[in-house]
């Protein structure tokens, strides 16, 4: 007879034995209960090298990954997409939605010893974010003034309600910069952008171009006890296979972005020393889609667009080209952004017969050679995976008698051809949906977002009064419930009018050593500060 106690003792003993060899335990198992260890150097890997280290000025994925350690924002996201305090301790919005008041921490100093105050907030929002941030002038378009009644209160005044700004106050998007060091200079060319002074958990030490960026623990950080690491070194490794090798040899412990090729993920996952983490990208929210150039025939015909949507097997695309690290998208907003996602959207199932019938109805009959339409396609130049997806589109569309010529370019040429010359029949890419559809989604559908020469804008050329009306309501509606209803309506129209086929919710991933604990899993986790991370055992 076995008593429950015996089993318990046994399992506890097994557990203790396991804890002795804690290296073998996954990080998640150890995290529970164990106190964070302090000290040590973390080597992280970046690709490509950022242009500057102040992401509030030269924002790019690698710039944010470094910069979030040096600077803070007013708020941060927690794992449930809720805002939590950072430089601001609390905030409130006026009843009419045009005034937002932030109360700030009073115990924060810049890395040069100067106290942080509301003047820094006012300067950063008005002079930096609104003027020189690539999308700040759009997001904060209605911000007219920032009052600073005292050093620890910042009052933001808007000309009309702007709920979208709540998706941009986090430190990975809008950073607070030191007014005393930037005022009177051109922020974009300030030499401090290469040797930044922030309020963040780590202090900038050195940047050896092409090789390394070194940060050291900020002993005066306001979040007491943090950070745990003494040093963080970012290495630049351009070759994906070499990045994988650096991780496998233990020369690097953390790769926040684009760590290894999709084809290597399974191998890295299988290693007990390494972790592949897919959480932490719900904020940037990469959405993959297939655009039609509506300036060209026959894409003005909705039946042709519907036929293409039926001909693309999104499940197969996710499983083959993207190795299962993607899932079919139901619309332009990712399903995990539950506050915005509409659940009952019109869908286009994979159905070759239906697709062919639609093309026949549109008058595109098959010729003697089985071809009914010859078009070209430009896949995104942001990585090999998207070129491979182009091969998939070519094969899939051949089945409905559409002959596709692929046009692959390097990145600058791609941007020029697609977003300036609009010289394509079809085009596939991913855009970040960002935490608010007004930032990431509307730019694909709004007629005002047809901006010649601007990357990641409305490339299909869709200009639909009904869609425009909904988008403009979303921009000015102060009531969250009404606004969310409009956002759902936008998704429905996007699926019905179909200027582009929403293909996949891409899954980005980080790879790191199993010895690391405290990795931030919040929606921007992949870009978040390493202040919560410690090296266990």
């Amino acid at each position, binding site marked *: 007879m076995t008593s429950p106690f015996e089993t318990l003792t046994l399992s506890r003993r097994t557990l203790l034995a396991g804890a002795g060899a804690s290296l073998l335990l996954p990080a998640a198992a150890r995290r529970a209960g164990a106190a964070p260890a302090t000290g040590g*150097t973390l080597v992280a890997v970046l690709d490509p090298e950022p*242009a500057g280290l102040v992401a509030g000025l030269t924002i790019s994925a690698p710039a944010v990954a470094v910069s979030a350690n040096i600077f803070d924002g007013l708020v941060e996201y927690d794992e449930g997409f809720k805002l939590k305090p950072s430089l601001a301790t609390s905030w409130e919005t006026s009843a009419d939605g045009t005034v937002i008041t932030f109360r700030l921490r009073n115990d924060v100093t810049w890395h040069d010893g100067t106290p942080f105050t509301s003047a820094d907030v006012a300067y950063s929002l008005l002079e930096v974010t609104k003027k020189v941030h690539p999308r700040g002038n759009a997001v904060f378009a209605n911000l007219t003034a920032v009052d600073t009644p005292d050093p620890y209160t910042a009052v933001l005044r808007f000309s009309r309600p702007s709920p979208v700004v709540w998706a941009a106050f986090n430190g990975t998007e809008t950073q607070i910069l030191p007014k005393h060091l930037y005022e009177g200079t051109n922020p974009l060319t300030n030499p401090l952008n290469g040797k930044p002074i922030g309020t963040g958990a780590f202090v900038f030490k050195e940047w050896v171009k*092409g*090789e390394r960026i070194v940060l050291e623990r900020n002993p005066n950080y306001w979040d007491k006890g943090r950070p745990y690491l003494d040093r963080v070194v970012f290495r630049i490794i351009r070759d994906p296979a070499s990045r994988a*090798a650096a991780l496998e040899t233990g020369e690097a412990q953390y790769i926040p972005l684009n760590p290894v090729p999709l084809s290597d993920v399974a191998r890295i996952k299988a290693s007990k020393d390494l972790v592949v983490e897919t959480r932490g990208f719900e904020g940037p929210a990469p959405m993959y889609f297939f655009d039609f150039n509506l300036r060209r025939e026959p894409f003005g015909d909705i039946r042709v667009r519907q036929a293409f949507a039926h001909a693309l097997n999104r499940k197969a695309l996710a499983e083959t080209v993207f190795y299962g690290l993607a899932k079919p998208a139901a619309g332009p907003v990712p399903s995990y952004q539950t506050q915005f996602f509409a659940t009952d959207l019109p869908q286009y199932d994979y159905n070759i017969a239906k697709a062919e019938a639609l093309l026949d109805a549109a008058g595109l009959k098959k010729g003697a050679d089985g071809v009914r339409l010859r078009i070209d396609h430009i896949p995104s130049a942001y990585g090999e995976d998207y070129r491979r997806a182009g091969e998939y589109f070519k094969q899939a569309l051949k089945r409905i008698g559409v002959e596709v010529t692929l046009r692959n370019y390097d990145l*600058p040429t791609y941007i020029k051809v697609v977003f300036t010359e609009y010289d394509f029949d079809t085009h596939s890419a991913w855009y970040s949906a960002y935490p608010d559809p007004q930032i990431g989604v509307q730019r694909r559908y709004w007629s005002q977002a047809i901006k010649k020469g601007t*990357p990641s804008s409305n490339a299909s050329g869709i200009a639909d009064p009904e869609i425009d009306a909904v988008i403009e309501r979303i921009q000015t509606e102060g009531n969250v419930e009404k606004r969310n209803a409009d956002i759902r309506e936008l998704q429905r129209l996007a699926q019905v009018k179909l200027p582009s086929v929403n293909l996949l919710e891409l899954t980005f991933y980080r790879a790191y050593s199993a010895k690391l604990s405290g990795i931030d899993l919040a929606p921007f986790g992949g870009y978040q500060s390493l202040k919560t991370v410690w090296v266990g055992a």
Partner: protein
Amino acid sequence: MARALQLPEGRVLRYLGLRVVQVVPTILAIVVLNFFFLRLAPGDLAEVMAGEAGSATPEYMAMLRQQFGLDEPLAIQFFKYMGQLFQLNLGYSFRNSMPVLDLILTRAPNTALLMLSSLVLAVALGILFGAISAQWRGRWPDGVLSAFSTIGFATPLFWVGLMLIVLFSVELRWLPAGGMRDLQQVHTGLAAVGDVALHMVLPVLSLAFFYIAIYTRLTRSAMLEVQELDFVRTARAKGIAPLPIAVRHVLRNALLPIVTMTGLQLGTLLSGSVVIETVFAWPGMGRLAFDAVFQRDINLLLGVLFFSSFLVIVSNLATDLVYALLDPRIDVR
């Protein structure tokens, strides 16, 4: 022997002066062609940086172009650039937030270290292997070395590099997989030198693997040609032992094509190896230029090309002088 290696001084100086005068228009032509050709590539730095940002507004793009000086007419941009160049100012790299000259000067020594080491290794081993091959022509050492050099010649550099990483770094854990120094700990003094040396082993071997093959084949064929010549037969008839004949008579006379090759390669080598520097994350010139191309960082690319063409011209000049040193029959004019 010592007398044969002397060059008449006055003539050398005159020769050098003449060559320098020739060099100036050459470099000028290179700069002008580069300036206009590079602008034929579609897309510019503003578009690339807006692309990296994830999204942008037209106002932001206009601001970037203004900052980069891309909003001015091409002719104005050209005269501004030439004006800077005459003051030896290579301009500013906006993608790297750093003056171009500073970028080049921090990268060039890293590349020189890597490239000169592998060139020295390749020339030494290549000449040795080539001499052995020629001496035992048609027998097994020749067969083994020929097979080796064919493989070295035909194997893609990046593959050699990756395989060395897999074997010596990932599997055996003997050597670091990439980078130039250990970033976990800070080394000082002799330990720092040793650390860099350790990081050099794999990239130097990968590069040398390719170049050894070239020098082996070159030495072998040059020596075989010289072996047939009359003076070698005479030396043999005089009863000189085979080894001194091979070294003093055959090899020395076979050195000229090797010097030509080394001189040619020296100039290009110092511009870096894109492949090896990328695979081994070595912060050198090759990667700098490569990234500049894809980021349309024209200022940086112009600077790198200017610097590289300068190196090629200087090393060609040096090669000519070495010819005269090695072969008294060749005169500098």
